[in-house]
């Protein structure tokens, strides 16, 4: 079971893990990203997540397909939340299951890293002083 989704409701870690459960899998690895109370020293009140929805979903499906080929996983799920999130809210949840733990954790890292690197999703961070900023907008740009 491979599944990706962009959601506007709370991410439920237990149901993510349940989604990838199978009797032949002995290892489930889960990652949850949450909104931190500060970023690079600036106190944060919340983050607005937006996406190029159609492409983000396709890119996440590609990432799961790659992970399946690289690590032999057959069960993986990515859930990314969009909209306004507050400190402590989960923005991304990834769960992977495999018969063995090494592959489950390797695949988890690959999926999380690639999703952050490639999925067209953006964060508009709001700070306690009322200002806001697009995260990483001054980052290195590549063609």
């Amino acid at each position: 079971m491979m599944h990706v989704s962009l959601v506007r409701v709370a991410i439920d870690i237990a149901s993510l893990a349940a989604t990838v459960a199978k009797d032949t899998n002995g290892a489930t690895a889960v990652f949850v990203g949450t909104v931190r109370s500060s970023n690079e020293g600036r106190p944060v009140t919340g983050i607005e997540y937006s996406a190029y929805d159609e492409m983000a979903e396709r890119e996440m499906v590609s990432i799961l397909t790659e992970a399946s080929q690289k690590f032999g996983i057959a069960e993986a799920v990515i859930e990314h939340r969009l909209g306004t999130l507050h400190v402590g809210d989960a923005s991304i949840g990834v769960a992977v299951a495999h018969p063995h733990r090494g592959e489950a954790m390797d695949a988890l890292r690959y999926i999380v890293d690639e999703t952050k690197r490639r999925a067209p999703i953006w964060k508009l961070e709001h700070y306690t002083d009322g200002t806001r900023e697009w995260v990483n907008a001054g980052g290195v740009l590549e063609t």
Partner: protein
Amino acid sequence: MTVTVRLFASYAEILGKSELELTIPDGSTVADVVRSVNGMPGGNSLPPSPLVAVNYSYASSAKPLANGDEIAIIPPVAGG
């Protein structure tokens, strides 16, 4: 031919719009569309070689376009 250009996040704010139609000569490439967008009001604040996707896949600036293509100019991503 006509293509759709989509803008997101900081780029949509800079240009004041998130979608536009462009009529371009046959044989135009991604780079030609980017140059058109750079020439619009505010467009010079965009980088000269941004990340671009054509029909939902990342594409190089040399990629030739076809009528009806959707070209997305992608600000640095920051998901997760």
